[in-house]
C-alpha cells in the first residue's frame, strides 16, 4: 500500500476527488434537509393523526413524494438536465450534480422526517394541548424537539446513500471518489485506484455512521 500512496499523481487525483465528494454530499445534504423539512411538516400536520388533518392535501403531497422517490436516480439525472441548467447555468460539473442529488434526496428526507415526527408520543402532544399550547408551539416545541435524534438518524442514512449516488453523478461530470473508482479502477483496469477509492468510501461511511451514533446518544 505504501507503494501506491507514494504515487504523487494518484494521491492528488484521489484527494481532489474526495474533496469533490465532500462538496457534493455536503451541499446536497444541506439543501435537501432544508427543503425536505417543509413537506415533512405539511405531511405531519395533515396526516390523519395530525394537528390539522386534511386528507386531500396529505394524499396529494404523499403521492408527489412517492413519484419522486420511485424514479431511479440515473433517470432523474438525465430528466433534470434542463432544470439543472436553469438553476446553476450548466448541466455538467460538480456543482451541477448537486441539483439532481438534492432533488432525489428531498422526497426521501420528507418521508424520513415525517415518519420521525409522527413517532412522537401522542400523549405528550395531548399534554401540551392541555396547557393551552398553540399548534405552532406544539409543532416546534414538542414534535420537532422530541424527534431530533430520530431525524438525525435519517440524515445519517441520507448522507450515506448520497455518497453512493454521488458516484453515479460522475456520469454528468460530477467527479468524486466513486467516479474515479469507475473511470480509473474499472474502465482502465487500475486495480490500485479501485482499492484505494473503496477503502476511502468504506472509511468515510464508517466515520459518518459512528459520528451519527455518537450524536444520537448525546441528543436522546
Amino acid at each position, binding site marked *: 500500500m505504501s507503494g501506491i500512496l507514494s504515487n504523487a499523481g494518484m494521491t492528488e487525483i484521489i484527494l481532489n476527488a474526495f474533496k469533490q465528494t465532500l462538496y457534493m454530499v455536503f451541499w446536497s445534504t444541506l439543501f435537501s434537509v432544508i427543503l425536505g423539512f417543509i413537506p415533512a411538516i405539511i405531511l405531519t400536520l395533515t396526516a390523519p393523526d395530525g394537528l390539522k388533518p386534511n386528507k386531500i392535501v396529505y394524499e396529494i403531497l404523499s403521492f408527489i413524494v412517492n413519484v419522486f422517490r420511485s424514479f431511479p436516480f440515473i433517470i432523474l439525472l438525465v430528466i433534470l438536465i434542463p432544470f439543472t441548467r436553469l438553476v446553476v447555468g450548466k448541466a455538467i460539473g460538480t456543482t451541477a450534480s448537486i441539483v439532481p442529488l438534492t432533488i432525489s434526496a428531498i422526497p426521501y428526507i420528507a418521508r424520513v422526517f415525517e415518519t420521525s415526527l409522527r413517532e412522537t408520543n401522542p*400523549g405528550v402532544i*395531548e399534554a*401540551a394541548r*392541555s*396547557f*393551552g399550547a398553540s399548534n405552532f*408551539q406544539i409543532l416546534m416545541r414538542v414534535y420537532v*424537539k*422530541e424527534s*431530533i435524534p430520530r431525524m438525525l438518524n435519517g440524515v445519517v442514512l441520507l448522507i450515506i446513500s448520497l455518497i453512493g449516488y454521488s458516484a453515479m453523478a460522475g456520469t454528468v461530470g460530477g467527479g468524486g471518489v466513486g467516479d474515479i473508482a469507475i473511470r480509473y479502477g474499472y474502465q482502465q483496469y487500475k486495480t490500485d485506484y479501485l482499492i484505494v477509492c473503496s477503502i476511502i468510501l468504506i472509511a468515510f461511511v464508517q466515520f459518518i455512521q459512528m459520528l451519527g451514533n455518537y450524536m444520537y446518544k448525546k441528543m436522546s
Partner: protein
Amino acid sequence: MIQIQNVKKSFKKTEVLKDISIEIEKGEIYGIIGQSGAGKSTLLRCINGLESYDDGQILVDGQKVDIKDKTNLRLLQKRMGMIFQGFNLLERLDVYQNVALPMKFWGINPNTPESKDKIMKLLTLVGLEEKVHAKPRELSGGQKQRVAIARALVLDPDFLLCDEATSALDPEITRGILALLQKINKEMGITIVVVTHQMEVVKQICQRVAFLSDGRVLAVGKPEQLFIWPKEREIRDFLREESDKLPTTGVNLKLFFFGEGNQRPIVTMMSQELGTDFNICWAKLEDFREDVYGSLVLNMEEKDLQRACDFLDKHDVTWEVVS
C-alpha cells in the same frame, strides 16, 4: 366551580356521554368513577377542551368551555392543570425543563430568578428537588407522575384534572401520589377532579363522587354514602360485592356505623337487652379518608324486628330493612 349541564357526546354513531349533569364545587376533591368505557375520561377531556361535546354546556366559573373559541379556551386551559395515566413527559427534556414547558407556551421566561424560584418550590413540594436535571428515563413511574404534577401546577391553576393518574402505579406509590394530591388541595386550595376506576383512590381522597355507567351519571354523593351499601346493581358489580347472597327467610336489618358507632358493642348489647340471638350475615368496615365507616346486616325473625328498631333508634344507630 365546574358546572356540567346536560352534556352529550357521540363518536360516530356511539353515544359516549348521554345527558351528563354534575356540579363540582370550588375547593373539593371530586371523583368521577366507573368501569372502563363508561365515558369518564371523555368527560374530563371535555372539561378542559381537549375534546368537543355535541350538546349541553360546561361552565368553568361561569365561563363556557367552547372548543371553537380558541382564545378563551386557551385562557381556561391555563387555569386547569392536567395529569395523565402515561405521565406524558418530554423524553428529551430534563425535570426542570419539563416543569417549565407550560411557561414557554405562555411566553414566560423559565430562567428568570422568579421562575426558577417557583419551579424549585414546586419540585420541593413534589419531593424531587434532588432530581432537577434528571431525564424522565432515569425516573420511576411515581417520580414521573410527580414531575407531571409539578408541571400541571406551574401556571398557578385553580383546577387540577387527573386522568387515571395512578392507574399505572403500584399501591404503595399510589398512596404517596394521593397524599400529595390531598396536600395540594388543602394547602393551595386547588379544586381537584379525579377520574379513576380505582376504589382506593375514591376512598382515600374524594369528598364527593359521581358514578358513571354507560355514559350516564348513576349516582352522585359522598363516597361513604354511595359505596357502603350501594343500591344500584352497576355499583355493586363494580365493587364486586356479594350483596345478593342474603338469607331469604326472616328479616334482614342493615346497621350503619359512622366513626363513634364502631366503638360500641351495639350488637351484643342489643342481643342481651332483647334476649334473642341474631345471625350476622354480612359486614363491611371501610376507611374513607380519615374516617372509618362500617355496616352490617343482621338476620332475625320477623317478630323481633320492631323491638330491634326501637333499640337502635334509642342508641342513635342508623338502620334500614333490606330484602
